[in-house]
């Protein structure tokens, strides 16, 4: 069943994130990183299936199809990137320590999700597909923790071209240790569902984030800047956050969520 969406998605087109005017009886596929999205248009129906096998030739009839019927035969598909649907616990390959008063900027890549919309006379979200199926982890204690995705990162200090992948979102995190002690960074809890996505030359970027650490007995402060990082300052806004941070709500989140 499709979910009717009243709010329009951002009207931006790129080679991957595009609108497809479906012709009658048309079928085809879209490749976004490791996932292939197959579609069929039959009468007033849209069929969608995904494949991750990476095989060149596959029997599409054997795929697990989902189908939706619409009022009109004239249907457009719109493919939009989205951040994952829950928090992400990011673990640097090599844990590091921030001495007091130190600031660093790190970059980490998050595999994007793909939202497939159909547009007839209104907008319907058909399906959301993760480009990479991430394993999960438990963040926090046994009673009050949160289920989140698990990601290992190199926590790069600078942007290098090999980071660019069209199916990943580069997240920029500025961390400042304002406490009187060293800050050991073993895991970072990334509030993915609160981040917007921007695009520049087919590379996706998230909102830049500032984290201020004031000490173990005080709450860390997290600020989502609502802009892409300086490196991609002219990137274009392409996708809204799943759960935008509301000003009155933000403080409560920060109290509840232990950043490190």
């Amino acid at each position, binding site marked *: 069943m499709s979910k009717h969406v009243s709010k329009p998605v951002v009207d931006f087109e790129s080679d991957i994130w595009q609108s497809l005017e479906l012709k009658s009886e048309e079928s085809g596929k879209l490749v976004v990183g490791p996932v292939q999205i197959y579609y069929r248009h039959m009468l007033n129906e849209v069929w969608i299936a995904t494949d991750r096998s990476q095989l060149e030739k596959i029997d599409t009839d054997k795929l697990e199809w989902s189908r939706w019927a619409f009022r009109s035969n004239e249907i457009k598909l719109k493919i939009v990137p989205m951040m994952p649907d829950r928090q992400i*616990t990011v673990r640097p390959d090599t844990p590091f320590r921030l001495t007091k008063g130190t600031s660093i900027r790190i970059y980490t890549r998050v595999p994007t999700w793909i939202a497939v919309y159909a547009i007839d006379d209104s907008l319907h979200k058909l399906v959301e597909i993760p480009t990479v*199926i991430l394993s*999960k982890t*438990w*963040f926090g204690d046994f009673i009050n923790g949160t289920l989140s995705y*698990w990601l290992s990162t190199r926590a790069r200090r600078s942007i290098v071209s090999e980071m660019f992948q069209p199916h990943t979102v580069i997240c920029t995190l500025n961390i400042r240790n304002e406490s009187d002690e060293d800050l050991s960074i073993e895991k970072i809890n990334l509030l993915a569902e609160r981040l917007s996505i921007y695009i520049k030359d087919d590379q996706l970027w998230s909102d830049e984030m500032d984290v201020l650490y004031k000490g173990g007995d005080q709450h860390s402060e997290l600020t989502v800047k609502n802009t892409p990082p300086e490196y991609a300052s002219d990137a274009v806004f392409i996708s809204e956050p799943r759960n935008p941070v509301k000003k009155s709500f933000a403080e409560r989140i920060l109290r509840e969520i232990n950043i490190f």
Partner: protein
Amino acid sequence: MLEINIWDYLNEAFWKNLIKGLLFLVISIPIILYFRKIIRNSVTKKYGVHYGLLSSKVFYYSMMGIVLMAFLTEIGFSLGPLLGAAGIVGVALGFASQTSVSNIISGLFLIAEKPFEVGDVITVGDLTGAVLSIDTLSIKIRTFDNRFVRIPNEMIIKQVVINITRFPIRRLDIVVGFAYKENIDRVKAILLDIAEKNTRALQEPEPMVNFNAFASSAVEVNFRVWAPKEDFIKLRDEIHTAIKVRFDEEGIEIPFPHVSIYSGEVTKPFPVKMLKEESEVDKKELPD
């Protein structure tokens, strides 16, 4: 002698009041039912099924009590003597219905203590199922083979109840046995790799493999993997399957109980020599 004529009571005023009372019931009961539905839906949406059911029941029974009292007053019953009589009858009924009263009180404790909610999966004795409702006298559960089970509240209060779905994550414990000839570190590494490759297994709390026992036929280790509660059944199936497949691939023997007979030396097994072909023996010993 006191003569009571029933027609003195069933006069025109009584019939008028009765019709007014019935009219009151006809109007008020659908309104109560309507509001019960609204309360259940709105509370369920905001606070969950458990509180939705609870609030709708509190509303329904209290409103029905008020409506009943109003109806009786309308048709001319005086509630004072009725309640007095109810007190006397209540004592008598109390002795006769100790079990029911016990269930009602147990039900109140269950609601207050909240060991489980509607929708939770619980184990009571040897029964496991999803809680359908928590009522005045009993709780109702649906077992996974689709049986409807009613358990009196008193039994729930007295027994150990395991709430399987209270917490979002669960641990799968498997005792894995392998032959004595195998390298224990290699087996541990393989098991951890199986957990690592399963996307349902949580990265943290970390999967663990700990030595358990030198059993009669195998070395046993405890393999512990965590998973979100909704993935638990699938994880159990996938991990067990993966262990068998992987052990077969790696040539690791999963032993069954067997006995080796030794002649006293440490390494040499007891020599067994076949003297005749089995078929020849069988042929000789077979009766004509």
